[in-house]
Protein backbone atom coordinates (compact mmCIF):
# COMPACT_ATOMS: atom_id res chain seq x y z
CA UNK A 1 0.00 0.00 0.00
CA UNK A 2 1.36 3.38 -0.97
CA UNK A 3 2.27 5.88 1.70
CA UNK A 4 0.47 9.08 0.74
CA UNK A 5 0.96 12.30 2.64
CA UNK A 6 -1.30 15.32 2.46
CA UNK A 7 -0.21 18.74 3.63
CA UNK A 8 -2.98 20.63 5.41
CA UNK A 9 -2.82 24.15 6.70
CA UNK A 10 -3.50 23.86 10.42
CA UNK A 11 -4.52 27.50 10.69
CA UNK A 12 -7.30 27.15 8.20
CA UNK A 13 -8.38 23.52 8.37
CA UNK A 14 -11.25 22.45 6.15
CA UNK A 15 -13.11 19.16 6.75
CA UNK A 16 -14.16 19.07 3.08
CA UNK A 17 -10.53 19.21 2.06
CA UNK A 18 -9.66 16.30 4.35
CA UNK A 19 -12.48 14.16 2.96
CA UNK A 20 -11.39 15.10 -0.52
CA UNK A 21 -7.80 14.03 0.13
CA UNK A 22 -8.96 10.80 1.68
CA UNK A 23 -11.08 9.98 -1.36
CA UNK A 24 -8.18 10.61 -3.72
CA UNK A 25 -5.87 8.51 -1.55
CA UNK A 26 -8.39 5.67 -1.62
CA UNK A 27 -8.62 5.90 -5.41
CA UNK A 28 -4.85 5.59 -5.65
CA UNK A 29 -4.78 2.72 -3.18
CA UNK A 30 -2.82 4.57 -0.55
CA UNK A 31 -2.60 4.94 3.17
CA UNK A 32 -3.09 8.61 4.04
CA UNK A 33 -0.94 10.44 6.55
CA UNK A 34 -2.02 14.01 7.22
CA UNK A 35 0.73 16.51 7.92
CA UNK A 36 -0.65 19.43 9.89
CA UNK A 37 1.47 22.42 9.00
CA UNK A 38 1.80 24.98 11.76
CA UNK A 39 3.95 27.83 10.60
CA UNK A 40 5.60 29.13 13.72
CA UNK A 41 8.65 30.44 11.92
CA UNK A 42 6.62 33.39 10.74
CA UNK A 43 5.86 34.32 14.34
CA UNK A 44 9.44 35.39 14.82
CA UNK A 45 9.73 39.14 14.48
CA UNK A 46 12.81 41.22 13.89
CA UNK A 47 12.68 43.80 16.70
CA UNK A 48 14.90 46.88 16.38
CA UNK A 49 17.04 47.64 19.47
CA UNK A 50 18.53 51.16 19.63
CA UNK A 51 22.07 51.72 20.89
CA UNK A 52 23.02 54.94 22.81
CA UNK A 53 25.01 56.15 19.83
CA UNK A 54 21.90 56.09 17.67
CA UNK A 55 22.65 52.82 15.83
CA UNK A 56 20.16 49.98 15.66
CA UNK A 57 20.50 46.22 15.83
CA UNK A 58 17.74 43.76 15.07
CA UNK A 59 16.96 40.92 17.42
CA UNK A 60 14.75 37.92 16.65
CA UNK A 61 11.84 37.77 19.05
CA UNK A 62 8.69 35.74 19.16
CA UNK A 63 5.45 37.63 18.65
CA UNK A 64 3.65 36.11 21.62
CA UNK A 65 0.30 37.70 20.89
CA UNK A 66 0.20 36.34 17.35
CA UNK A 67 1.49 33.00 18.53
CA UNK A 68 -1.32 32.66 21.07
CA UNK A 69 -3.86 33.68 18.46
CA UNK A 70 -2.51 31.07 16.09
CA UNK A 71 -2.40 28.37 18.73
CA UNK A 72 -6.11 28.90 19.32
CA UNK A 73 -6.78 28.54 15.58
CA UNK A 74 -4.69 25.37 15.45
CA UNK A 75 -6.54 23.90 18.44
CA UNK A 76 -9.86 24.56 16.69
CA UNK A 77 -8.50 22.94 13.52
CA UNK A 78 -7.25 19.94 15.44
CA UNK A 79 -10.60 19.43 17.15
CA UNK A 80 -12.34 19.68 13.80
CA UNK A 81 -9.90 17.18 12.31
CA UNK A 82 -10.67 14.59 14.98
CA UNK A 83 -14.43 15.14 14.78
CA UNK A 84 -14.32 14.85 10.99
CA UNK A 85 -12.39 11.57 11.25
CA UNK A 86 -14.90 10.25 13.78
CA UNK A 87 -17.98 11.30 11.80
CA UNK A 88 -16.69 9.91 8.51
CA UNK A 89 -14.96 6.85 10.02
CA UNK A 90 -11.57 7.91 8.71
CA UNK A 91 -8.62 6.09 10.18
CA UNK A 92 -5.88 8.60 9.44
CA UNK A 93 -2.48 9.18 10.92
CA UNK A 94 -1.75 12.76 11.94
CA UNK A 95 1.65 14.39 12.16
CA UNK A 96 2.12 17.88 13.49
CA UNK A 97 4.96 19.96 12.09
CA UNK A 98 5.62 23.24 13.80
CA UNK A 99 8.50 24.68 11.82
CA UNK A 100 8.86 26.04 8.33
CA UNK A 101 5.97 24.42 6.37
CA UNK A 102 7.93 24.05 3.15
CA UNK A 103 10.94 22.44 4.86
CA UNK A 104 8.61 20.17 6.84
CA UNK A 105 6.76 18.98 3.75
CA UNK A 106 9.99 18.42 1.84
CA UNK A 107 11.38 16.37 4.72
CA UNK A 108 8.20 14.28 4.91
CA UNK A 109 8.13 13.84 1.13
CA UNK A 110 11.37 11.84 1.17
CA UNK A 111 9.60 9.11 3.10
CA UNK A 112 6.35 9.18 1.15
CA UNK A 113 5.32 7.73 -2.17
CA UNK A 114 3.21 10.72 -3.11
CA UNK A 115 2.34 14.12 -1.72
CA UNK A 116 -1.16 15.50 -2.12
CA UNK A 117 -1.65 19.23 -2.12
CA UNK A 118 -4.71 21.33 -2.64
CA UNK A 119 -3.84 23.96 -5.21
CA UNK A 120 -5.47 26.52 -2.94
CA UNK A 121 -3.30 25.74 0.08
CA UNK A 122 -1.31 28.92 -0.35
CA UNK A 123 -4.31 31.05 -1.10
CA UNK A 124 -6.83 30.22 1.56
CA UNK A 125 -8.07 33.03 3.68
CA UNK A 126 -5.73 32.84 6.62
CA UNK A 127 -5.11 34.88 9.69
CA UNK A 128 -1.96 36.45 8.39
CA UNK A 129 -0.52 36.69 4.93
CA UNK A 130 2.78 35.22 6.10
CA UNK A 131 1.18 31.89 7.01
CA UNK A 132 0.93 31.07 3.33
CA UNK A 133 2.58 27.89 2.23
CA UNK A 134 4.43 28.21 -1.01
CA UNK A 135 3.21 25.48 -3.33
CA UNK A 136 5.92 26.46 -5.80
CA UNK A 137 8.69 25.93 -3.26
CA UNK A 138 7.26 22.57 -2.28
CA UNK A 139 7.03 21.51 -5.92
CA UNK A 140 10.57 22.58 -6.58
CA UNK A 141 12.05 20.71 -3.64
CA UNK A 142 9.73 17.74 -3.08
CA UNK A 143 11.42 14.35 -2.97
CA UNK A 144 8.42 12.41 -4.18
CA UNK A 145 5.84 13.08 -6.89
CA UNK A 146 3.25 15.72 -6.02
CA UNK A 147 -0.40 15.47 -7.00
CA UNK A 148 -2.21 18.79 -6.96
CA UNK A 149 -5.90 18.28 -6.41
CA UNK A 150 -8.67 20.47 -7.78
CA UNK A 151 -11.26 21.57 -5.19
CA UNK A 152 -14.16 19.83 -6.91
CA UNK A 153 -13.84 16.08 -6.54
CA UNK A 154 -14.24 14.43 -9.91
CA UNK A 155 -13.30 10.87 -10.76
CA UNK A 156 -10.09 10.69 -12.75
CA UNK A 157 -11.18 9.63 -16.21
CA UNK A 158 -8.22 10.51 -18.37
CA UNK A 159 -4.44 10.67 -18.12
CA UNK A 160 -2.97 13.48 -20.16
CA UNK A 161 0.75 12.82 -20.49
CA UNK A 162 2.56 15.95 -21.62
CA UNK A 163 5.63 14.98 -23.60
CA UNK A 164 8.31 16.97 -25.35
CA UNK A 165 10.85 14.23 -25.94
CA UNK A 166 12.84 15.11 -22.83
CA UNK A 167 13.98 12.70 -20.13
CA UNK A 168 12.04 14.68 -17.52
CA UNK A 169 8.71 14.48 -19.36
CA UNK A 170 9.18 10.72 -19.87
CA UNK A 171 10.24 10.30 -16.25
CA UNK A 172 6.97 11.90 -15.11
CA UNK A 173 4.99 9.60 -17.42
CA UNK A 174 6.74 6.53 -16.02
CA UNK A 175 6.28 7.57 -12.40
CA UNK A 176 2.58 8.33 -12.93
CA UNK A 177 2.11 5.00 -14.70
CA UNK A 178 3.78 3.09 -11.87
CA UNK A 179 2.25 4.96 -8.94
CA UNK A 180 -1.26 5.42 -10.29
CA UNK A 181 -1.62 1.88 -11.60
CA UNK A 182 -4.86 1.34 -9.70
CA UNK A 183 -6.71 4.22 -11.33
CA UNK A 184 -7.16 2.52 -14.73
CA UNK A 185 -8.43 5.62 -16.57
CA UNK A 186 -10.83 5.19 -19.47
CA UNK A 187 -8.60 7.26 -21.71
CA UNK A 188 -4.89 7.98 -22.07
CA UNK A 189 -3.69 10.85 -24.23
CA UNK A 190 -0.15 11.90 -24.98
CA UNK A 191 -0.04 15.63 -25.52
CA UNK A 192 3.07 16.21 -27.58
CA UNK A 193 4.40 19.72 -27.40
CA UNK A 194 6.25 20.14 -30.67
CA UNK A 195 8.46 22.98 -29.53
CA UNK A 196 10.73 22.85 -32.58
CA UNK A 197 7.91 22.45 -35.11
CA UNK A 198 9.47 19.32 -36.55
CA UNK A 199 6.13 17.70 -37.26
CA UNK A 200 7.59 14.46 -35.89
CA UNK A 201 7.10 12.85 -32.52
CA UNK A 202 10.49 12.45 -30.81
CA UNK A 203 11.34 8.75 -30.33
CA UNK A 204 7.84 7.78 -31.46
CA UNK A 205 8.57 4.06 -31.71
CA UNK A 206 10.07 3.83 -28.22
CA UNK A 207 7.28 5.88 -26.67
CA UNK A 208 4.67 3.71 -28.39
CA UNK A 209 6.47 0.62 -27.10
CA UNK A 210 6.34 1.85 -23.52
CA UNK A 211 2.72 3.02 -23.57
CA UNK A 212 1.59 -0.04 -25.50
CA UNK A 213 3.01 -2.24 -22.74
CA UNK A 214 1.02 -0.39 -20.05
CA UNK A 215 -2.22 0.73 -21.70
CA UNK A 216 -4.55 -1.01 -24.12
CA UNK A 217 -5.26 2.21 -26.03
CA UNK A 218 -3.78 5.64 -26.10
CA UNK A 219 -4.24 8.67 -28.30
CA UNK A 220 -1.83 11.28 -29.50
CA UNK A 221 -2.52 15.00 -29.66
CA UNK A 222 0.10 17.31 -31.11
CA UNK A 223 0.30 20.99 -30.40
CA UNK A 224 2.63 23.70 -31.58
CA UNK A 225 3.40 26.98 -29.99
CA UNK A 226 3.89 28.13 -26.43
CA UNK A 227 3.65 25.00 -24.25
CA UNK A 228 1.85 26.67 -21.37
CA UNK A 229 -0.85 28.15 -23.58
CA UNK A 230 -1.29 24.97 -25.56
CA UNK A 231 -1.49 22.72 -22.50
CA UNK A 232 -3.99 25.01 -20.81
CA UNK A 233 -6.06 25.19 -23.96
CA UNK A 234 -6.06 21.41 -24.30
CA UNK A 235 -7.20 20.91 -20.73
CA UNK A 236 -10.21 23.17 -21.11
CA UNK A 237 -13.44 21.20 -21.02
CA UNK A 238 -11.73 17.96 -20.06
CA UNK A 239 -13.08 17.33 -16.56
CA UNK A 240 -11.50 14.43 -14.74
CA UNK A 241 -8.12 14.82 -16.43
CA UNK A 242 -4.86 14.13 -14.67
CA UNK A 243 -2.02 15.92 -16.40
CA UNK A 244 1.63 14.97 -15.89
CA UNK A 245 4.43 17.51 -15.92
CA UNK A 246 8.10 16.68 -15.57
CA UNK A 247 10.99 18.62 -14.09
CA UNK A 248 9.28 21.35 -12.18
CA UNK A 249 11.54 24.36 -12.23
CA UNK A 250 14.20 22.55 -14.19
CA UNK A 251 13.15 22.55 -17.82
CA UNK A 252 11.18 24.53 -20.30
CA UNK A 253 8.02 22.52 -19.90
CA UNK A 254 7.79 23.42 -16.28
CA UNK A 255 8.76 27.02 -16.59
CA UNK A 256 5.24 28.01 -17.44
CA UNK A 257 4.55 27.65 -13.75
CA UNK A 258 7.00 30.42 -13.11
CA UNK A 259 5.37 32.87 -15.45
CA UNK A 260 2.26 34.89 -14.79
CA UNK A 261 0.08 32.02 -15.97
CA UNK A 262 1.49 29.78 -13.29
CA UNK A 263 -0.71 31.12 -10.56
CA UNK A 264 -3.69 30.84 -12.85
CA UNK A 265 -3.01 27.13 -13.36
CA UNK A 266 -2.26 26.28 -9.77
CA UNK A 267 -5.02 28.41 -8.34
CA UNK A 268 -7.62 28.04 -11.05
CA UNK A 269 -7.76 24.43 -9.90
CA UNK A 270 -8.31 23.27 -13.42
CA UNK A 271 -7.56 19.57 -13.12
CA UNK A 272 -5.37 17.08 -11.29
CA UNK A 273 -1.72 17.93 -11.88
CA UNK A 274 0.98 15.30 -11.30
CA UNK A 275 4.42 16.84 -11.04
CA UNK A 276 7.72 15.16 -10.46
CA UNK A 277 11.31 15.44 -11.51
CA UNK A 278 14.27 13.08 -11.55
Amino acid at each position, binding site marked *: *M*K*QIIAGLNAIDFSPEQLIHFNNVSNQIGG*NLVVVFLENLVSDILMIPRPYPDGAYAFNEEIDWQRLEERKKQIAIGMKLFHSTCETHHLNLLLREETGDPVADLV*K*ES*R*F*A*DMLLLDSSISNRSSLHHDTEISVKSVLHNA*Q*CPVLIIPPQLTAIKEFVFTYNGS*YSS*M*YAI*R*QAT*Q*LLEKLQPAKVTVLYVDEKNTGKLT*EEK*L*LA*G*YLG*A*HFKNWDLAVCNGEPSVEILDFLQNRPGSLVTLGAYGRSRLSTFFHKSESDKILLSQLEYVFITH*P
Partner: protein
Amino acid sequence: MQKILVALDSTKINMTTLEFACYLGRIARSKITGLLLENLESDKKPVLRTMYQTTYLDWQPDVKSPAYQEKMKDIENNIARFKEACTNRGVNCDVYRDSGVPSAELIAESRFADLLVIDPDTEYGETSKEHHMEFVRDILKLSECPVIIAPETFDELEELIFCYDGSRSSFYAIKQFEYLLPEFSNKKVTLLEVNKPGDESVPYQDRVRAWFRHHYVNLQPEILYGDARDQIFSHLLLKKKAMIVMGAYGRGALSRLFKESTADKLLKTTNLPLFITHP
Protein backbone atom coordinates in the same frame (compact mmCIF):
# COMPACT_ATOMS: atom_id res chain seq x y z
CA MET B 1 5.94 -2.84 -14.22
CA GLN B 2 5.30 -3.82 -17.80
CA LYS B 3 8.50 -3.20 -19.67
CA ILE B 4 11.70 -4.97 -18.69
CA LEU B 5 14.59 -4.36 -21.01
CA VAL B 6 17.33 -6.97 -21.02
CA ALA B 7 20.54 -5.99 -22.74
CA LEU B 8 22.56 -8.83 -24.20
CA ASP B 9 25.54 -9.13 -26.45
CA SER B 10 24.03 -10.27 -29.76
CA THR B 11 27.01 -12.50 -30.48
CA LYS B 12 27.02 -14.40 -27.18
CA ILE B 13 23.79 -14.47 -25.20
CA ASN B 14 24.27 -15.00 -21.48
CA MET B 15 21.55 -17.50 -20.67
CA THR B 16 21.75 -16.86 -16.90
CA THR B 17 21.02 -13.17 -17.43
CA LEU B 18 18.11 -14.11 -19.68
CA GLU B 19 16.89 -16.64 -17.12
CA PHE B 20 17.00 -13.97 -14.41
CA ALA B 21 15.13 -11.45 -16.59
CA CYS B 22 12.48 -14.08 -17.32
CA TYR B 23 12.16 -14.74 -13.58
CA LEU B 24 11.46 -11.04 -12.99
CA GLY B 25 9.10 -10.98 -15.97
CA ARG B 26 7.10 -13.91 -14.59
CA ILE B 27 6.85 -12.34 -11.14
CA ALA B 28 5.85 -8.91 -12.45
CA ARG B 29 3.76 -10.37 -15.30
CA SER B 30 5.76 -8.16 -17.59
CA LYS B 31 6.93 -8.52 -21.13
CA ILE B 32 10.68 -8.92 -21.69
CA THR B 33 12.21 -6.78 -24.39
CA GLY B 34 15.53 -8.15 -25.52
CA LEU B 35 17.94 -5.57 -26.76
CA LEU B 36 20.59 -7.41 -28.68
CA LEU B 37 23.52 -5.08 -28.98
CA GLU B 38 25.75 -5.16 -32.03
CA ASN B 39 28.95 -3.26 -31.99
CA LEU B 40 29.18 -2.34 -35.67
CA GLU B 41 31.89 0.18 -34.92
CA SER B 42 34.33 -2.66 -34.33
CA ASP B 43 33.45 -4.21 -37.72
CA LYS B 44 34.13 -1.06 -39.67
CA LYS B 45 37.06 -0.98 -42.01
CA PRO B 46 38.44 1.77 -44.27
CA VAL B 47 36.82 1.75 -47.71
CA LEU B 48 37.62 4.01 -50.68
CA ARG B 49 34.51 5.69 -52.12
CA THR B 50 33.92 8.02 -55.03
CA MET B 51 31.41 10.82 -55.17
CA TYR B 52 31.27 13.70 -57.70
CA GLN B 53 34.50 12.38 -59.24
CA THR B 54 36.23 12.71 -55.88
CA THR B 55 37.67 9.75 -54.02
CA TYR B 56 37.51 9.72 -50.25
CA LEU B 57 38.09 7.36 -47.35
CA ASP B 58 35.03 6.05 -45.51
CA TRP B 59 34.58 3.56 -42.67
CA GLN B 60 32.03 0.82 -43.37
CA PRO B 61 31.51 -2.76 -42.24
CA ASP B 62 32.85 -5.18 -44.79
CA VAL B 63 29.51 -6.90 -45.29
CA LYS B 64 30.87 -9.37 -47.81
CA SER B 65 33.63 -10.71 -45.60
CA PRO B 66 33.19 -14.29 -44.29
CA ALA B 67 33.73 -13.07 -40.72
CA TYR B 68 30.91 -10.54 -41.00
CA GLN B 69 28.59 -13.06 -42.67
CA GLU B 70 29.34 -15.55 -39.90
CA LYS B 71 28.62 -12.93 -37.25
CA MET B 72 25.22 -12.08 -38.79
CA LYS B 73 24.35 -15.76 -38.87
CA ASP B 74 25.25 -16.10 -35.18
CA ILE B 75 23.06 -13.10 -34.34
CA GLU B 76 20.09 -14.57 -36.20
CA ASN B 77 20.55 -17.83 -34.30
CA ASN B 78 20.78 -15.96 -31.01
CA ILE B 79 17.54 -14.10 -31.71
CA ALA B 80 15.82 -17.44 -32.28
CA ARG B 81 17.36 -18.79 -29.04
CA PHE B 82 16.18 -15.72 -27.12
CA LYS B 83 12.58 -16.10 -28.33
CA GLU B 84 12.55 -19.82 -27.68
CA ALA B 85 13.95 -19.37 -24.16
CA CYS B 86 11.30 -16.77 -23.28
CA THR B 87 8.47 -18.88 -24.70
CA ASN B 88 9.67 -21.95 -22.78
CA ARG B 89 9.65 -19.92 -19.55
CA GLY B 90 6.15 -18.57 -20.16
CA VAL B 91 7.18 -14.96 -20.74
CA ASN B 92 6.08 -12.72 -23.59
CA CYS B 93 8.94 -11.12 -25.42
CA ASP B 94 10.08 -8.71 -28.08
CA VAL B 95 13.52 -8.51 -29.62
CA TYR B 96 15.27 -5.48 -31.02
CA ARG B 97 18.63 -5.37 -32.68
CA ASP B 98 20.57 -2.24 -31.99
CA SER B 99 23.60 -1.56 -34.06
CA GLY B 100 25.94 1.28 -33.36
CA VAL B 101 27.61 2.28 -30.13
CA PRO B 102 26.13 -0.17 -27.57
CA SER B 103 26.19 2.11 -24.52
CA ALA B 104 24.59 5.01 -26.41
CA GLU B 105 21.86 2.76 -27.78
CA LEU B 106 21.15 1.35 -24.37
CA ILE B 107 20.92 4.76 -22.69
CA ALA B 108 18.47 5.93 -25.36
CA GLU B 109 16.31 2.84 -24.89
CA SER B 110 16.41 3.08 -21.08
CA ARG B 111 14.37 6.31 -21.12
CA PHE B 112 11.40 4.26 -22.33
CA ALA B 113 11.73 1.23 -20.04
CA ASP B 114 10.72 0.50 -16.46
CA LEU B 115 13.79 -1.56 -15.70
CA LEU B 116 17.01 -2.55 -17.41
CA VAL B 117 18.69 -5.89 -16.71
CA ILE B 118 22.33 -6.21 -17.73
CA ASP B 119 24.95 -8.91 -17.66
CA PRO B 120 27.98 -7.99 -15.49
CA ASP B 121 30.33 -9.51 -18.03
CA THR B 122 29.08 -7.41 -20.91
CA GLU B 123 31.89 -5.47 -22.50
CA TYR B 124 32.64 -4.08 -25.90
CA GLY B 125 35.86 -3.03 -27.49
CA GLU B 126 38.64 -3.06 -24.91
CA THR B 127 38.88 -6.25 -22.91
CA SER B 128 41.93 -5.49 -20.80
CA LYS B 129 41.77 -5.70 -17.01
CA GLU B 130 41.61 -1.92 -16.68
CA HIS B 131 38.58 -1.75 -18.94
CA HIS B 132 36.79 -4.69 -17.41
CA MET B 133 33.28 -3.61 -16.37
CA GLU B 134 33.71 -0.20 -17.96
CA PHE B 135 30.64 -0.75 -20.09
CA VAL B 136 28.58 -1.75 -17.04
CA ARG B 137 29.86 1.27 -15.10
CA ASP B 138 28.88 3.62 -17.93
CA ILE B 139 25.40 2.17 -18.05
CA LEU B 140 24.97 2.47 -14.29
CA LYS B 141 25.96 6.11 -14.36
CA LEU B 142 23.97 7.16 -17.40
CA SER B 143 20.94 4.90 -17.47
CA GLU B 144 17.62 6.73 -17.37
CA CYS B 145 15.80 3.88 -15.65
CA PRO B 146 16.72 1.62 -12.73
CA VAL B 147 19.26 -1.09 -13.53
CA ILE B 148 19.67 -4.61 -12.21
CA ILE B 149 23.02 -6.28 -12.67
CA ALA B 150 22.16 -9.93 -13.11
CA PRO B 151 23.98 -12.59 -11.08
CA GLU B 152 26.34 -15.09 -12.69
CA THR B 153 24.32 -18.01 -11.40
CA PHE B 154 20.79 -17.76 -10.23
CA ASP B 155 18.44 -19.22 -7.65
CA GLU B 156 14.98 -18.00 -6.73
CA LEU B 157 15.23 -14.94 -4.48
CA GLU B 158 14.34 -15.34 -0.82
CA GLU B 159 15.60 -12.06 0.60
CA LEU B 160 15.87 -8.40 -0.29
CA ILE B 161 18.72 -6.35 1.18
CA PHE B 162 18.15 -2.60 1.17
CA CYS B 163 21.14 -0.36 1.92
CA TYR B 164 20.27 2.96 3.58
CA ASP B 165 22.84 5.52 4.67
CA GLY B 166 20.55 8.45 5.46
CA SER B 167 20.95 9.99 2.03
CA ARG B 168 18.14 11.01 -0.26
CA SER B 169 19.49 8.84 -3.05
CA SER B 170 19.61 5.65 -1.00
CA PHE B 171 15.95 6.04 -0.03
CA TYR B 172 15.03 7.02 -3.58
CA ALA B 173 16.40 3.65 -4.78
CA ILE B 174 14.43 1.82 -2.12
CA LYS B 175 11.18 3.48 -3.19
CA GLN B 176 11.79 2.88 -6.89
CA PHE B 177 12.43 -0.82 -6.27
CA GLU B 178 9.12 -1.17 -4.46
CA TYR B 179 7.21 0.61 -7.24
CA LEU B 180 8.62 -1.77 -9.82
CA LEU B 181 8.46 -5.04 -7.91
CA PRO B 182 5.72 -4.83 -5.25
CA GLU B 183 5.30 -8.57 -5.76
CA PHE B 184 8.26 -9.11 -3.41
CA SER B 185 6.41 -7.62 -0.43
CA ASN B 186 6.23 -10.99 1.35
CA LYS B 187 9.95 -11.75 1.10
CA LYS B 188 12.33 -11.43 3.99
CA VAL B 189 13.63 -7.87 4.00
CA THR B 190 16.92 -6.80 5.56
CA LEU B 191 17.33 -3.07 5.99
CA LEU B 192 21.05 -2.36 6.30
CA GLU B 193 21.29 0.99 8.03
CA VAL B 194 24.77 2.34 7.52
CA ASN B 195 25.86 4.82 10.15
CA LYS B 196 28.34 7.43 9.09
CA PRO B 197 31.38 7.67 11.40
CA GLY B 198 30.55 9.88 14.37
CA ASP B 199 26.78 9.54 13.99
CA GLU B 200 24.87 7.89 16.77
CA SER B 201 21.88 6.85 14.71
CA VAL B 202 20.77 6.71 11.10
CA PRO B 203 18.90 9.85 10.05
CA TYR B 204 15.08 9.66 10.06
CA GLN B 205 15.16 6.05 11.25
CA ASP B 206 11.54 6.15 12.46
CA ARG B 207 10.25 7.47 9.14
CA VAL B 208 12.23 4.92 7.17
CA ARG B 209 11.01 1.99 9.23
CA ALA B 210 7.41 3.29 9.08
CA TRP B 211 7.62 3.35 5.28
CA PHE B 212 8.98 -0.20 5.23
CA ARG B 213 6.22 -1.49 7.48
CA HIS B 214 3.67 -0.20 4.98
CA HIS B 215 5.28 -2.07 2.12
CA TYR B 216 6.95 -5.16 3.55
CA VAL B 217 5.66 -7.64 6.10
CA ASN B 218 8.93 -9.24 7.17
CA LEU B 219 11.37 -6.44 8.04
CA GLN B 220 14.64 -7.02 9.88
CA PRO B 221 16.69 -3.84 10.40
CA GLU B 222 20.43 -4.19 10.97
CA ILE B 223 22.69 -1.29 11.84
CA LEU B 224 26.26 -1.24 10.56
CA TYR B 225 28.91 0.92 12.18
CA GLY B 226 32.27 1.95 10.86
CA ASP B 227 33.51 1.99 7.29
CA ALA B 228 30.48 1.50 5.05
CA ARG B 229 32.38 -0.29 2.30
CA ASP B 230 33.98 -2.88 4.55
CA GLN B 231 30.83 -3.40 6.53
CA ILE B 232 28.55 -3.86 3.55
CA PHE B 233 31.03 -6.07 1.77
CA SER B 234 31.57 -8.42 4.68
CA HIS B 235 27.83 -8.51 5.38
CA LEU B 236 26.93 -9.41 1.81
CA LEU B 237 29.72 -11.88 1.29
CA LEU B 238 27.88 -14.71 3.00
CA LYS B 239 24.45 -13.98 1.58
CA LYS B 240 22.73 -16.23 -0.91
CA LYS B 241 19.42 -16.04 -2.80
CA ALA B 242 19.18 -12.32 -2.11
CA MET B 243 18.99 -9.11 -4.12
CA ILE B 244 20.80 -5.91 -3.07
CA VAL B 245 19.15 -2.51 -3.53
CA MET B 246 21.39 0.57 -3.58
CA GLY B 247 21.21 4.18 -4.66
CA ALA B 248 23.45 6.92 -5.92
CA TYR B 249 25.77 5.11 -8.24
CA GLY B 250 28.74 7.36 -8.80
CA ARG B 251 27.24 10.13 -6.72
CA GLY B 252 27.40 9.27 -3.05
CA ALA B 253 29.13 7.49 -0.26
CA LEU B 254 27.55 4.12 -0.93
CA SER B 255 28.59 4.27 -4.54
CA ARG B 256 32.26 4.51 -3.64
CA LEU B 257 32.01 0.77 -3.49
CA PHE B 258 32.00 0.79 -7.23
CA LYS B 259 34.71 3.27 -7.89
CA GLU B 260 37.37 0.85 -6.86
CA SER B 261 38.13 -2.77 -7.45
CA THR B 262 35.70 -3.64 -4.65
CA ALA B 263 33.00 -3.42 -7.32
CA ASP B 264 34.41 -6.34 -9.23
CA LYS B 265 35.00 -8.20 -5.98
CA LEU B 266 31.45 -7.64 -4.77
CA LEU B 267 29.83 -8.63 -8.02
CA LYS B 268 32.05 -11.64 -8.58
CA THR B 269 32.26 -13.03 -5.06
CA THR B 270 28.76 -12.48 -3.76
CA ASN B 271 26.97 -13.42 -6.96
CA LEU B 272 23.91 -11.41 -5.92
CA PRO B 273 21.75 -9.38 -8.27
CA LEU B 274 22.21 -5.68 -7.66
CA PHE B 275 19.48 -3.04 -8.16
CA ILE B 276 20.86 0.47 -8.62
CA THR B 277 19.20 3.75 -9.47
CA HIS B 278 19.65 7.39 -8.61
CA PRO B 279 17.53 10.53 -8.69
